[in-house]
C-alpha cells in the first residue's frame, strides 16, 4: 500500500505535477464557490476559452505564456462587462459572442504553428506532468495571491453576491469589486491551464463548489468543503492517471464528478435518496 502511494513520487516531474494539481484544485474550488453562487459557470468557461489567443500570441512572440493568457482573460472579462452593461445585448449573448470569437482566433493563430496538434491538445486538456520548477513557483505565488484576496475581501464579496442592494446602500464600489472578482477568476483559470487545460477548467470551478453547496449551510463551510473536495479530486485523479494511464486532467475532473454524484444522492437533508428515505 505504502509502495503503491510512494512509487509515483520517486519521479520529480510527478511530484511537481501532483503539487500543481493540488494547488489548482484548492484555488479553483474556493473561487468556484462564488462562480456557483453568482451563476457565473458559463462566464468561467468562456474566460477559459478566451485565454487561447493570448497564449498563441505570446507563443508566437516568444513571450511568457502565462502573461499572454492573463492579458487575454482580463481583456475578455472586462469586454463582456462593458458589452452587457450597455443593455444592447444580454450578458449570456455577449459571453457567447466573445467566447466563440476568442476561441476561433486562438485556433487560427495556433494552426499557423508547426507543432499544431501537440500544442493545441496541451492547451485544451492540460499537461500537468510538464510543469517545470518555475511554473510551480508561479502557480504557488498566484494561488497565495488569489486565496489571500478571497479571505481578505470575504465580507465585500459576500455582500455583492448575496445582496447587491445592500452593497449599494453601503456605498460599496460594486463595479470595482465585480471586476476584481473577474480578475481573480481569470488568474485562477490561468494557473489551471497546465493542470486541466482550457476544456476542463470550468469543471474544476463548478463541480467541487456544487458538491460543497449540497453539504454545507454557510459560505465559510462551503469554501472549506469545496477546497477539500478539490484537493482530494486532484490527488486521487493524479494516482488514477498514473496507474490507469489516462489523461490526468480528465481523471481529476471525473473524480470530482464522482464526489458530486455521491453528495447529490446522499447529502444529509438535501440528497435525492435522503429525501425519499
Amino acid at each position, binding site marked *: 500500500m505504502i509502495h503503491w502511494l510512494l512509487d509515483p513520487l520517486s519521479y520529480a516531474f510527478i511530484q511537481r505535477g501532483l503539487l500543481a494539481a493540488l494547488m489548482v484544485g484548492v484555488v479553483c474550488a474556493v473561487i468556484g464557490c462564488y462562480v456557483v453562487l453568482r451563476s457565473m459557470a458559463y462566464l468561467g468557461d468562456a474566460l477559459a476559452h478566451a485565454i487561447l489567443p493570448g497564449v498563441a500570441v505570446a507563443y508566437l512572440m516568444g513571450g511568457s505564456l502565462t502573461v499572454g493568457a492573463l492579458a487575454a482573460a482580463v481583456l475578455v472579462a472586462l469586454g463582456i462587462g462593458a458589452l452587457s452593461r450597455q443593455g444592447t445585448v444580454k450578458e449570456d449573448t455577449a459571453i457567447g459572442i466573445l467566447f466563440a470569437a476568442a476561441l476561433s482566433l486562438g485556433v487560427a493563430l495556433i494552426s499557423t504553428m508547426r507543432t499544431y496538434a501537440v500544442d493545441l491538445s496541451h492547451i485544451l486538456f492540460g499537461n500537468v506532468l510538464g510543469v517545470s520548477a518555475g511554473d510551480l513557483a508561479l502557480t504557488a505565488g498566484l494561488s497565495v495571491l488569489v486565496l489571500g484576496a478571497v479571505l481578505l475581501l470575504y465580507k465585500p464579496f*459576500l455582500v455583492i453576491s*448575496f445582496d447587491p*442592494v445592500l452593497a449599494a446602500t453601503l456605498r460599496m464600489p460594486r463595479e470595482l469589486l465585480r471586476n476584481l472578482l473577474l480578475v481573480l477568476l481569470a488568474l485562477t483559470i490561468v494557473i489551471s491551464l497546465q493542470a486541466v487545460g482550457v476544456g476542463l477548467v470550468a469543471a474544476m470551478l463548478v463541480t467541487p463548489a456544487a458538491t460543497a453547496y449540497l453539504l454545507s449551510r454557510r459560505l465559510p463551510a462551503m469554501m472549506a468543503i469545496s477546497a477539500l473536495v478539490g484537493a482530494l479530486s486532484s490527488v486521487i485523479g493524479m494516482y488514477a492517471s498514473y496507474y490507469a494511464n489516462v489523461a490526468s486532467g480528465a481523471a481529476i475532473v471525473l473524480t470530482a464528478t464522482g464526489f458530486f454524484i455521491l453528495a447529490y444522492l446522499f447529502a444529509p437533508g438535501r440528497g435525492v435518496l435522503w429525501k425519499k428515505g
Partner: protein
Amino acid sequence: MNLKEIPTSPARLELENVSAGYNGTLALQEITFAVPHGQRVAVIGPNGAGKSTLFKALVGLLPLRSGVIRIHGQTLRQHQDCVAYVPQREEVDWRFPVTVRDVVTMGRFGRTGWLRRPSPADQAVVERCMQQMGVAALAQKPIGELSGGQQQRVFLARALAQEPHILLMDEPFTGVDASTQEATLQLLDRLREERVTVLVSTHDLDLAARRFDVVCLLNHRLVAYGAPDEVFRAEHIREAFGGQTLSIDGVIVVDQCCSGEEEPGHVHGQAGGHG
C-alpha cells in the same frame, strides 16, 4: 396639481425634480418632495407606477436621469450607511448559504469596516435586533428554511442593526401573515421614537390612511403628497388609478388585482369623497 408644502425644516430627505428609469423609459418623472426628520411616509400608486424605482433611486442603485436627492442637505454620494432598505421577497436569493445571524450581521458591515471582524459591541447589537424581531431562536438556521414571515423579520432585524436614519421598505405587508404585519407596524412605532424617517411602499390603501403621517401618491409623476385626508380625495385617486377605480355611493373603491404569488382576490382601499 396642488401640492401642499409641508413647512418643516430642516427636511432630512429632499427630492428635487428627480427623473429615473431603465432603458429609455422614465418610470419616475420630475418628482419633488421633502420628508422631514422622523416622518412615516406611505408610498402608494398602481402597479408599475415607479414605487420600486423610487426606492432604487433613493439607495443609489439607479442613477438619476435628472434632479437631485439630498439627505441631511447633502447629495447621496456623500453619505454612507444612513439608508437601510428592506427588499421585496422576490429580490432575495433564498438558496444562498447564509444563516439568520449572518444576514443580520451584514447590517453592521458598514460600521465595522470591511476588513475587521465584528466587535463584541457589534455582536451585541446583532443579538438585540434579532431578539426585537423575534428571530433570535432561529439564529443558526439557513434563511431558506424559514417561513415567509420569519424571512421578512430577518431583513427587518438587519435594517435595525444598520441603525439607519432613513428606512425604506418595499411592500412589507404583501404576502405575510398577520403577526408579521403587526410586528412590522410595531417596529415602525419604535422607529418613530428613535426619530427614524421611514418610507414604506404598499398596496394597502387602508393601512396607508390609518397608520401613516404622510402619503405619497405616485403614478410616474407625483400625483399628491401630504396628510392622508388631503391625499385620499376622489380626484387624486382617479388621476392615479384611472380605470381601476369605481365609484359606489360616493365612495371610491380601488381594485388592485395584484401580481405574482399573492392570493387571488382584491385589495380594496377606500377613499372618502363625493364622486
